Every structure is written in C-alpha cells, then in structure tokens.
C-alpha cells in the first residue's frame, strides 16, 4: 500500500521533504513519510543514518532547514510544527523519550512523572507559595493520575524512591511512564529497547502495544534491534545517510534490496 492513497484524515503525522544540514554535511535529506492514527511505526537505518536527528527535527529540538512536520494534535487541527518553540510541542499532544534517559535524579519516581504533566498545572506562583486550595487540589488530582500510571507500569512500589540509583531497565520504564501523563496522540521513543535483556524486551513489546490500545495513540520509534522492530511495528521506514530508502511492513522492508545493501553492503558503509 503506497503512502499517497492513505486518506489524510487517518494520519497523525506527515513529514514532507524534511532536510537539515550541519556545516556542510546534510544529516537529513528530503525525507518524507506518514504515520497513521493508532499505528506503531518504526524508523530504522544503520548507525549515523540520522534517526535521532529526524526525531530532533520533528520535536523541534533542531530547527530543520526545510520541509514540513504536519501534526494532527489533540484539538484535531493539523499544524506545521516547524518553527514552533521546543517547549510548545508537548501541548499539541506529541511527547518523546531520550536515548540517554533524561530523568531527574534528585526527584522521586512519582515526582518525575508529575513533570510529565507540567502543562496541566495552572495554579499561580502565589497560590503555590501559600499552598492555597487550588494548588493543593490540582496537585492531588495529578498525583492520583500519576499513581494510576505507575500501577499500570508496575512501578507503584517504588513511587517514592529517588530516581537516582535505579537500575537501567526501571529508568527506561519510568521515562516511558512519564510520556503517558500528557494524554499523548503521538509518542516518540528513542531506542526504547537499548540495554534491555530478552525478557525485558518482550515485556516492552507487549507494553507498547497495550499503550497504543489503551491511550488510542500512535507510536514512532527508532531501534537497532531488527527483531524488536519486526515484532512490534505495523510499518517501518528505512533511511540511510539521512535519505529515504524504503517504507512498508517489516517483512517488506527486510526483503527490500536497497535496505539490505545499506545494512550489509559495501565495506565503507561500516565506517
């Protein structure tokens, strides 16, 4: 099924001709793809292909040189995210995780989750300083929400422990839990399976599927583990040196010649 026949009302994200260069090097070159609603979409490519750069361009951590990032947000309207400020993105319904796990060590697990719903807190500074009822109430409500998510993610037992010192697998789960706090329409996961053992990886696959169903959202992820991608993703887009290679189901991609050459091809590609 080619991209063009998919009706736009089914889409949640559409990247058009996305390009960015650093110095003279084009890191992403006229990349286009679409993600449907309730779809789990994978982005793969050899190391250095520019996958995290693509994520950064979508989430406006980098400003692309050209191209559009069309996103259908929580309000149902389609917007071009390019040019928006980085911190405005989450309020549209797009949230991400990081390759290096960006959690706050000095805060507890549940407090880290509460950061995920920062945009929902509305009480004024004065209200917070004096702990007026409005501030107390929204803290209570959102704390309950965080507890629900922690239970869902099997993290409730450690909710009051500090994040600093937790094992790697738990940290990844906490970061994933954090994304659920803002009722996302699209969750972007940057190497969610990195560093996980086989059991944890299988659990993750189930969890991501469950999240998609429960939260009615789409997932965009980048991963190196081909088995993980094949088992989990509905469709996959392969890129190499920032350029589009192929798009299709995991099976189609695995059998695609261009992809095979990019991954396993000439010696120089390993550098």
């Amino acid at each position, binding site marked *: 099924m080619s991209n063009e026949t998919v009706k736009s009302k089914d889409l949640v994200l559409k990247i058009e001709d996305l390009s960015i260069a*650093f110095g003279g090097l084009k890191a992403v070159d006229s990349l286009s793809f679409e993600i449907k609603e309730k779809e789990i979409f994978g982005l793969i490519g050899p190391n250095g292909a520019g996958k*995290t750069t693509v994520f*950064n361009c979508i989430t406006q*951590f*980098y400003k692309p040189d050209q191209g559009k990032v069309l996103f259908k947000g929580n309000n149902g309207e389609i917007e071009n995210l390019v040019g928006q400020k980085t911190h405005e993105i989450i309020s549209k319904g797009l949230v991400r995780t*990081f390759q290096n796990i960006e959690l706050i060590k000095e805060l507890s697990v549940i407090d880290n989750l509460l950061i995920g719903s920062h945009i929902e807190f509305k009480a004024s500074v004065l209200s917070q300083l004096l702990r007026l009822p409005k501030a107390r109430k929204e803290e209570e409500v959102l704390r309950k929400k965080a507890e629900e998510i922690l239970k869902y993610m099997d993290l409730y037992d450690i909710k009051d422990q500090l994040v600093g010192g937790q094992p790697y697998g738990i940290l990844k789960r906490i970061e994933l839990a954090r994304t659920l706090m803002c009722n996302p329409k699209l969750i972007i996961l940057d190497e969610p399976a990195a560093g996980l053992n086989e059991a944890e990886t299988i659990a993750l696959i189930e969890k991501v599927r469950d999240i998609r169903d429960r939260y009615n959202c789409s997932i965009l992820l980048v991963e190196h583990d081909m088995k993980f991608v094949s088992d989990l993703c509905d469709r996959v887009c392969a890129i190499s040196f920032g350029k589009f290679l192929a798009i299709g189901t995991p099976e189609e991609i695995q059998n695609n010649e261009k992809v095979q050459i990019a991954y396993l091809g000439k010696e120089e590609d390993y550098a």
Partner: protein
Amino acid sequence: MSIFIQIFLNSLETGGIYALAALGIILIFRTSNTTNYAQGAISMFNAFVATYILIGTNLPVYIVAILGMLSAFVVGVLVDRIVISKTQNMDPVSKQIITLGLLMIFLGLAPMLFGTDPIQFPRFIYGSLTILGATISYNAILNIVVVIILVSFLFYMLQRSKWGLSIRATASNEVVARMMGIPTSIVTMTSWAIAAALGTLSALMLAPSTSVSISMMDGVQIIAFLSCVLGGFQTFHGPVIAAYIIGFASNFISYYISSIWSDPILYILILVVILFKPNGLFGKKMVKKV
C-alpha cells in the same frame, strides 16, 4: 586633537592590560570548562609577592616582574594539582563554585600575609615623549609593546606548536583529546599556570597607577569577564580583541561622557550589545546535541 591621540594611546595600554587578564580567563575557560573567578585574586596575590621581592632584594623592576610571574606560575600549578585536577569530571557549576572558594581563600591569604595597606610598585621605566601634542610615557609604550609581543607569541604557539595543538584539542573536546593520547591534565595545569602568570603581569602593569592592594584587580576582573562575554567564549582571539575595544570604550567614555559613571555605562553598553549578539562579537552559535 591631541587629547584624542592622548586617549587613544592610553587606551592601547589599558586595552593591553585588559587583554592579558581576559586571555587568562578564556584560556582556563576553554580548557577546564569553567570561569575562573579567582583569577584576579591570584594575580593580586602574586603582585604582592613581586612587590615584597622588590622591597627585599632591590633587583631591577623587570626582573622582579618576571619572578612575580614565575611565582604565579607555581601558584597556578599548585592550585591545579591540589584542587582543580580533582574536579575534572564535575559539572561546570560545581567547578565555578570551587573557583569561588579559591577566590575567598586568596582574598583571605593576601591580607594575612601582606597586611591590608596598599604598597607601591614602580614603573618599569621612567620618562615620556610627545607625539602630535600628546604625552606618552616610555612605560606605557613598553607595556603596549610587551603585551602585543606576548599575546602574538602565545597565539603563534597556539597555532604552530605541539603544546598549542594540545590546548586547542582539549578546548574543543576534552574527552576525545584524552582518548587521542593528549595529556589533558598537563594541558589544564599549564593553562592555570600561564593564566596566573598573565594575570600577574596585568596586575604589575596596573600597579604603578593603583598601588598594589587587595582590591586592585577588582575592576580589571570584571572587565576580563565582560571581554569574554563581548568577544565570545568560543575563540581565543575574541576576548583579546574585545578587551582592546573595551579599553578604548572605557577611556573615551570616561573623558567625553562622565568619569564617575564610566564603569556603569560601559557595563550596560556591553550587556546591550549582548542582547543583539548573544554569542559575542566573534562567537559562533553552537548547536547542542540532544
């Protein structure tokens, strides 16, 4: 017209003094990744040492100055070995706080060892000459020339020597430099030593007009930081050029606008320029990798 030339010539000297101080700051900033708030105090400390040497031995002034710089060199090495080397893996804010601690230590040591009264440090050479109606002292000419030679020599070494390459590599990316076999801990040590020496020379050039006192470097210190802000923290030459610009601005503002408020006006001007050029006049915007 002759006043203009006068101020111009004075500015060359002032700019040179600022340039030495600024170079010390940027050298440490780019190799240790921290702003060294103790720079001025260490310079002042060694200026006292030099003055005591002068009083105690009666050696010629320029020899004393060199000895003062040597003392600074040693102090810089000690500070690096005892404290800074242990902070290698710390975040920048912690490193800055350590330099603030060092600042306090030196601000306490100086009056303890040298007393609180200012003492005189003489010029290197006396006499003056007149150019186009403006008077300039031989000492000022000497200072101007020495700074230009010294700074040029340092830049030459930075570009052409192995040491310079090590410094530039460490400044660019300390971890990678270390992996490439560059002894970054030695690079850091020499940076601190050289910065201390440069600062001390700056203080000694300043000394004849301000006397050697605990607070002698306070003003220069701020200007050194502002030079780095104005010139940009990404290059070595930026702060040096900015230091000269500030030297000129300072003297001209002082004469033509107001000498009492020249400092505040200068600071505010620089902060305004930064509004438009956040990375400094010569700075480049760095894209942070996420």
